[in-house]
């Protein structure tokens, strides 16, 4: 893992998976509104969440989320690809493609416990 002159931290997927990430801050979009997202579903809330590593150089990953209201309850959904200061490298040391990099980060952040934290964030917003 190293910080490059372009400001990106370059590391392998294995190095990222072995790096603990913790919640930094989350927020609810100021103009939350109801928009039909698909047949039978509605979007009622959206926002962002930010996570960081506790080691230097500090990894930063953020992404958007949306709360889907379904007939059987609610579901927290990641919206779009993450935003980050990371560039994942291949075994050869070469950079991944930028889009591929973000796709992999998306699958990694989906495994984090962000869906357990967001209800508290939303509750605080509307308390």
């Amino acid at each position, binding site marked *: 893992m190293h910080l490059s002159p372009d*400001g*990106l931290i370059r590391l392998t997927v294995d190095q990222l998976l072995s790096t603990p990430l913790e919640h930094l801050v989350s927020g609810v979009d100021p103009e939350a509104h109801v928009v039909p997202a698909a047949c039978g579903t509605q979007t009622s809330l959206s926002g962002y969440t*930010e996570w960081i590593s506790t080691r230097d150089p*500090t990894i930063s990953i953020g992404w958007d989320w949306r709360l889907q209201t379904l007939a059987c309850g609610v579901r927290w959904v990641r919206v*779009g690809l993450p*935003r*980050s200061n990371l560039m994942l490298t291949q075994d050869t040391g070469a950079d991944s493609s930028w889009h591929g990099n973000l796709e992999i980060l998306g699958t990694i952040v989906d495994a984090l416990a962000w869906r357990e934290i967001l209800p508290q964030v939303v509750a605080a917003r509307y308390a």
Partner: protein
Amino acid sequence: MNIVTGTPADLSVEIMAGVAHYRHRVFVEKLGWQLRCENALEYDQFDRDDTVYVVAHNAEHEVVGTARLLPTTRPYLLDEVFPQLLHGMAPPHSPDVWELSRFAAVDFSERGSSALAQFSSPIAVGLLQASLECAARHGAKRFITVSPLGVERLLRIAGFRAHRLAPPMIVDGNPVFACSIGCETHGAPTAARELALC
């Protein structure tokens, strides 16, 4: 929309006064930033003889967008005022890297729009593209900015390649971050969005 670029020596006194007044309307009156101003004109220590400005006018010759470009080889906002946003990383000092600041694209002649809705994007995206091209002519390969966190989302939606340089921090109650934007050529914008950079 007509866009002009240059240093104060390249632009007329009227254009420079219009930029300072426009920045006061956007950043002080609309966004409420606590900036030192005189006579409803906003400028600071980074408005120098070598500062490059990008100014957009509408058909009525009113200012509808501004941007300020600073080489990182001289004092600039991120280095001097917000170095904490780099989380210990050394601020860049390179002719390849320029800072984009005081970016705004609000058309005050548009009626019925809120202040935030007026950061609309045919102007914002055009102004940002013009700023990138202008900086590239000065040798820049990328911009750095101090931005509200939401700008990162909007840059992506508008089709710009950008990434954060470090985690966001809360400043005056709002998350802000240091952003890097590539100066490579971009395609047509994909959506109308709001943009405002410090």
